[in-house]
């Protein structure tokens, strides 16, 4: 899932890098606020711990074994802010020391695994309502973390102009689903084992109540948005048609062509820009729908 340099087109890696700068800044500030000074070595050692834990093989099926990715485990051990920061450090070391993931692609990898990967794991965990469903919640969080990160990586490759035929895409998604399920199982087993040694090491989720609904909606919105990005990037034409039938095309086209007309590079940029705008429009659409749905659910619940 680590995207190396050379795969992403300049607009994609540049956009992801620029978007990662404020995100990493925010995460660092929040993590600093949530921790004491004595935790600074702890964060680094936890990053090293994830590396070491990745070396332990887990038997998952006849003749097959898997290993940990770690975003979900870190989220449950350190809380979301510190986990996102430690994941960012891990990705930086992996790209610099091990050539696992590119330097220009670091922004994309940070978004996929450190930001969205941790968020996707934390949202269901934070919403846990009943203690008896805890195992399922941890499994779901770790599962979503891996599958969301994988889908985003695929979407970024597709937007970069790498054509992946539909059957190959389906196989890739199936593989992601399998490794996500493995991650879920491993994370549940590790959390249970750590709890046996010292229950206080695991972050408490929400104690249930009002926020549960919001978090479930948040998790659902995230999954829908990630899926939406993937669908939009694999078939931008379909989305364009949708926008056209919705009567947005003339306005959208004016918006695209006016500021760029007269420039020589508009011919080159327009293909990419059209794809990007179509994807973005789809994302906004899905986000709006989820927001409305969430508001409606909360209102009904409180009334």
């Amino acid at each position: 899932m680590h995207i190396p340099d050379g795969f992403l087109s300049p607009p994609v890696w540049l956009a992801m890098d620029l978007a990662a700068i404020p995100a990493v800044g925010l995460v660092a500030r929040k993590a600093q606020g949530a921790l004491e000074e004595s935790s600074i070595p702890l964060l680094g050692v936890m990053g090293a711990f994830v590396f070491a834990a990745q070396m332990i093989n887990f038997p998952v099926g006849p003749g097959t074994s898997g290993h940990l990715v770690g975003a979900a485990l870190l989220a449950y051990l350190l809380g979301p802010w510190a986990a996102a920061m430690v994941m960012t450090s891990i990705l930086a070391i992996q790209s610099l020391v091990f050539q696992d993931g590119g330097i220009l692609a670091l922004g994309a990898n940070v978004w996929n695994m450190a930001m969205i990967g941790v968020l996707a794991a934390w949202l269901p965990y934070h919403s846990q309502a009943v203690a008896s469903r805890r195992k399922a919640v941890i499994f779901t969080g770790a599962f979503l973390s891996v599958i969301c990160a994988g889908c985003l990586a695929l979407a970024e490759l597709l937007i970069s102009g790498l054509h992946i035929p539909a059957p190959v895409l389906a196989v890739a998604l199936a593989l992601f689903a399998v490794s996500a399920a493995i991650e879920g199982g491993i994370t549940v087993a590790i959390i249970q084992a750590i709890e046996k040694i010292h229950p206080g090491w695991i972050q408490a989720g929400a104690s249930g109540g009002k926020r549960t609904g919001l978090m479930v909606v948040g998790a659902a919105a995230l999954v829908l948005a990630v899926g939406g990005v993937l669908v939009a990037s694999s078939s931008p034409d379909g989305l364009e048609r949708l926008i056209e039938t919705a009567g947005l095309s003339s306005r959208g086209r004016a918006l695209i062509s006016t500021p760029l007309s007269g420039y020589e590079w508009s011919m080159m940029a327009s293909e990419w820009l059209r794809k990007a705008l179509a994807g973005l429009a789809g994302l906004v659409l899905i986000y709006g729908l989820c927001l409305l749905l969430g508001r409606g659910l909360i209102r009904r619940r409180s009334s």
Partner: protein
Amino acid sequence: MHQRTLDQWSRGASWLHRRDARAKALGTLALLALISSAPVRAAPLYLGVTAILAAGILVARLPLAAVLLRAAIVIPLSLTFAALVAIQGDVAKAAALVVRTYLSAAAALLLVGVTPLPKLLDGLRRLGVPKMIILTTQFLYRYLFVLVEQSQHMRIAASARGGGRVLRAIGLRRAAGSVAVLFARSYDRAEGIYRAMLARGFQGEFRLLEPTRFGWADSLLLGGLVLVCAVLGWSLPAA
């Protein structure tokens, strides 16, 4: 081991090793940006980048063959995707994908091959990367191999106690148990490290033994790299 080679390379004393980390990091970024924005059919450009990298490796007196071999670590992944592109009939694009990925990996390797990681991270901090991230990464790198070794010891110990083949359910629980023990030991270690650091007068940041200054030679290196990249990029054939 893997990292020991890199550490040895980065401790050299060549002209390139002595340059400021900021100049090397920004210069590498310029080179990577050039590689990534190169069109499919741009053999002269790819040759130019190869020449720059080869010159860098020679000036740094790094073992050429070892560097080229280590950069090939990215080849399997890029070959997989290149095969996918080639099947769809675009062989030139597939070849460009492999070349771009390989050259990018070699450029990154050259950067860490001539800059010790603590110096590189200090340079990044001075370029504005948040201090928390830098500190975390420094601790991570410092303890990475300590903990990896510990995990290997635990594996050897487990197999010495007759770990062999067990039922799958037991195997999963046992692996989870080892990760939990590894976590407990890491946690203890972190607390010990903090106490030891306080005892040695830690005041919130790592200091370099030999702080570097951004001198005229560094400006020359960075300026030269950016200029060459700009010229190469300018003369690109239209995509």
